[in-house]
């Protein structure tokens, strides 16, 4: 009976899916609170970081020159406003 239970628990409880390999993506880890107007004007494009398993937070990644980047909180108004004015990178690079 006891061993029955042991086998059963083992087999039933192991019904979990696994995450095989880690992929090590470039991710935003936190947000910039406010970006100066002058810098905002310099942003060229943005891409959307999704929380689909690769990164831990969702974010808007603004790209400046020299491939410098800033992470914006998609919930903040200034981020939404800025997104309207610049190019959305559909093909990530």
């Amino acid at each position, binding site marked *: *009976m006891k061993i029955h239970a042991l086998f059963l628990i083992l087999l039933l409880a192991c019904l979990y899916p696994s995450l095989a390999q880690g992929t090590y993506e470039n991710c935003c880890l936190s947000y910039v609170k406010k970006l100066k107007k002058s810098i905002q004007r310099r942003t060229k494009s943005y891409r959307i970081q999704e929380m*689909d398993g690769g990164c831990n937070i969702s974010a808007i990644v603004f790209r400046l020159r020299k491939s410098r980047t800033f992470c914006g909180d998609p919930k903040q108004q200034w981020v939404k406003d800025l997104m309207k004015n610049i190019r959305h990178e559909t093909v990530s690079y």
Partner: protein
Amino acid sequence: MGSHPDFDYDDHFNDSSYDEHYENYEDFHTVCDKKDVRSFAALFLPVVYTLALVVGLAGNSMVVFVYLSRKRLRTLTDVFILNLAFADLLLLFTLPFWAADAINGWEIGVAACKITSAFYTTNFSCSMLLLACISVDRYRALKQRSASALSLARGNPRRQRLLLCLLVWAVACVLGLPDLVLATVKQHSGGRKACRAVYPVTMAQGAKASLEFLEVLLSFLLPFVVMLFCYCQVGRALSQAATSGVRGVQRWKTFRVLIAVVGVFLLTQLPYSVVKFVRALDTIYALVKDCKTSKGLDRANQVTESLALMHCCLNPVLYIFVGSSFKDHMIKLAKRCGQTGRRLRQGSEMPVPVEVSLKLREHPTDNAAPESDDEDTSTFTI
């Protein structure tokens, strides 16, 4: 276009304040570039995986060869060990793909990604499952002599072994299913293609975290607790057998095998599970905001996962080569243990929990008594 001159002027004029501003936030609010983590992986993982592949292929294929060339497998543990070697072999076959992935990114398509991921998960979990099953069977074999065991002894034992193995493989395949569904090739911001599970955006955080927690709980803690429990019982029975005249040196050798089995499991799986647990916490609470820490965690993940994979090379060593020299010897020991157990039970010196289990087992085995003698020969292999 009208604002262009203004832009350029501003650009030029505010350079110093921009840089100042930028420096302040550099560590925390730019994208954390993990190029160096990936280049570490591109060097480290192929080396480790090649090593694992060579050692693992040699050991496990030898086990499969030896066991299949036998006319019949004597014990359930033998059957489990054969299956374990098979699962380890299949797991090892995915390693070249992961090594290539670490070097170049995933270039061989979505179908290959799905199949490789599912294979990896299925066989990794099957391996863990079988390790626990072996410990349960060894424990069962030891207890069997005093009260012949449960449903396994009922009916045709060969058919039941087959069924049990099919059950283990079926569960493992179910575990591989989510990978088959979710795994896909995704191009990420570095330009590389990666083969990973992509969750629906709305459920991603909760799903990923709960999966990682569950994985730690079930692929490490549960097998570990089961193994620890079963092998402690076996160990205790062995030390009781010492009183019935088993030599000290033999006993120590047997203990050594048990300690090695549990110890190696702990050494290889614990670090990976700890890292996984921390990563799961990080997924929920986004704890790591520092790029260096995040990279450190990624490296730790690579190293500990490689260590965890090494377990499948060590299985043949632990379960066959270390054990085989003690095999005959263990059978003798187990017989004595059984006699000791019987004697102890009659003398009501048996520890309480075991006694409870024996009583519980009395009921289903009553009607199975005739067949039980047949199973009696399957004693104890380490």
